[in-house]
């Protein structure tokens, strides 16, 4: 998974929030998918109107085509974002979402504003996004919005007890290992890493390994031993 760029904003109580800001690439791709969607909707709509309206209410075809093309041109993106909580079809596919500059939910007004200037942004938007740390196009600046990655919530395992002297770096490495141990391609690599961690535990907190140390049993699973030793909560 590609590393997501994070930019800091100040949230409630001046607490820093590192928003996963969507860059030029993912936003352009989402826009491309949206324009394909717009083309399909417009084509289906026109054919549908010609067939259905021409048969049901003869004479209304031209009016319906003119009006609906106008509404699609100005409202396709805005309506999707307003009804979809800041997401269009392309943004849903790429897991992006429009939020306010403070990270909150954007209201209908700003969503409408950012989409009304879309035509101007087709010319100057990419340049503005490329030079702005928050990747805002003109519409975002007008509306006070940002586009962020809308990823699933983190559910990595956390440690229940920590050997004395371990800092945030060691903790992060071990937690990351426990989260990914099952997906490592080569079980020997996982085993080797787990044994290294067990060695550190044996040095810093041998009491954690009471009853779980696989060193006593050559057939034991060192990854399970690390899990058992560190995820068990202290009494």
């Amino acid at each position, binding site marked *: 998974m590609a590393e997501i760029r994070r930019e800091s904003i100040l*949230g*409630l*109580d001046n*607490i*820093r*929030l*590192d*928003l*996963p800001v969507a860059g030029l690439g993912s936003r352009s791709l989402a826009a491309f998918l949206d324009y394909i969607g717009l083309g399909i909707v417009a084509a289906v709509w026109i054919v549908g109107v010609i067939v259905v309206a021409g048969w049901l209410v003869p004479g*209304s075809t*031209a*009016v319906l085509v*003119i*009006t609906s093309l*106008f509404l699609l041109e*100005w409202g396709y993106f805005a309506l999707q974002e307003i009804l979809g909580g*800041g997401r269009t079809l392309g943004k849903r596919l790429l897991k992006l979402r429009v*939020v*306010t500059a*403070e*990270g*909150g*939910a*954007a*209201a*209908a*007004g*700003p969503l*409408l*504003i950012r989409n*009304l*200037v879309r*035509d*101007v942004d087709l010319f100057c938007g990419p340049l503005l996004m490329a030079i702005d740390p928050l990747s805002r196009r*003109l519409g975002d*600046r*007008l*509306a*006070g919005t940002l586009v962020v990655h809308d*990823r699933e*919530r*983190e*559910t*990595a*395992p*956390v*440690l*229940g*007890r*920590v050997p004395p002297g*371990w800092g*945030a*770096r060691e*903790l*992060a490495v071990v*937690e*990351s290992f426990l*989260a990914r141990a099952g997906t490592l391609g080569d079980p020997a690599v996982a085993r080797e890493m787990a044994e290294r961690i067990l060695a550190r535990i044996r040095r810093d907190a041998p009491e954690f390994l009471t009853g779980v140390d696989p060193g006593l049993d050559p057939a034991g699973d060192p990854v399970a031993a690390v899990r058992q030793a560190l995820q068990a*909560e*202290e009494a």
Partner: protein
Amino acid sequence: MDYARFIRLRRPLWEAFEAELAATRGSLRKAGYESLEDMALHYRQVLHDHALAAARFPGTAAARRLQSLAIEGTRRLTGEGRQRPAGLRTFFSRTFPLAFQRQLGLLGVVVALFLLAVVWGLTVTALRPAVGLAFLGPEAARGLEEGQLWTHSLVTTVPPAVSSSRIATNNISVALTAWTGGVLAGLVPLYVVLLNGLMLGAILGVTMHYSMAGDLLEFISAHGLLELTLILVSAAAGLALGRALVAAGDRPRATALREASRDSLAVLLGCVPWFVVLALVEVFVSPSPEVSAGVKLILGIALEVAFLALALRPIPLESTPEPRP
């Protein structure tokens, strides 16, 4: 506080907040007032835990989990998107008039520029009628020589319903373009104002040259006044964006633009329904020989007065509730 103790003490709170977020996934309105209060309290606590974890235990699973919880909580609980939007009645009785009245200065500038352009077009065409004919095109010029206005074709060549939808969408597109073009330092709305003024002056000059100005004024009397007013109002709204960009004052440009865009969008949206009404008038009333010139003029004035009465109505200041002791 060590990491394990921090997690042991605070994890129940994070899990409670996660459960609350899951329970209100569709809409926050599902939650009652008390649940919402609890949720807001938990959100604040999660935010503080996130700040602590980011400083003391950066990169750990707890820090990452709290970061994603804080971001999701912020999105779900803050921002204007959770507010119930004001209804149409509130919009037209309060939001639109307030925004319109705040923009009157710019509207004055736009009207002055427009009138200058009209006089300019009229003068140029009086001196050289060919300039006015260039605006109309060869077909309309031929029609004038035969004593017929080009407006005749509005309802004779295509069905009225098609004409009216085409006119309405075209006029709204012009208004939207004038507004959105405001972000280009106000150049596009200025262009729209000057071009429309010049064209009106030139066309008036040409029809005067062919002694048909009376017919033209009769044709535009029902819809023209308000249509021009709406175009000028939209251009003034676009100019407000340009002004925010060029002369932001002591605020950051992004803030000035954001503030200007809210008001000017309200003005623009307030104009849209009138364009639809005008398109119907332009197709069904303006070219109709059965409707007398006097009735058309009265209708045109009535529409203008109705729009201005709505836009300029005095708005009382909203009463603010007394703070609770």
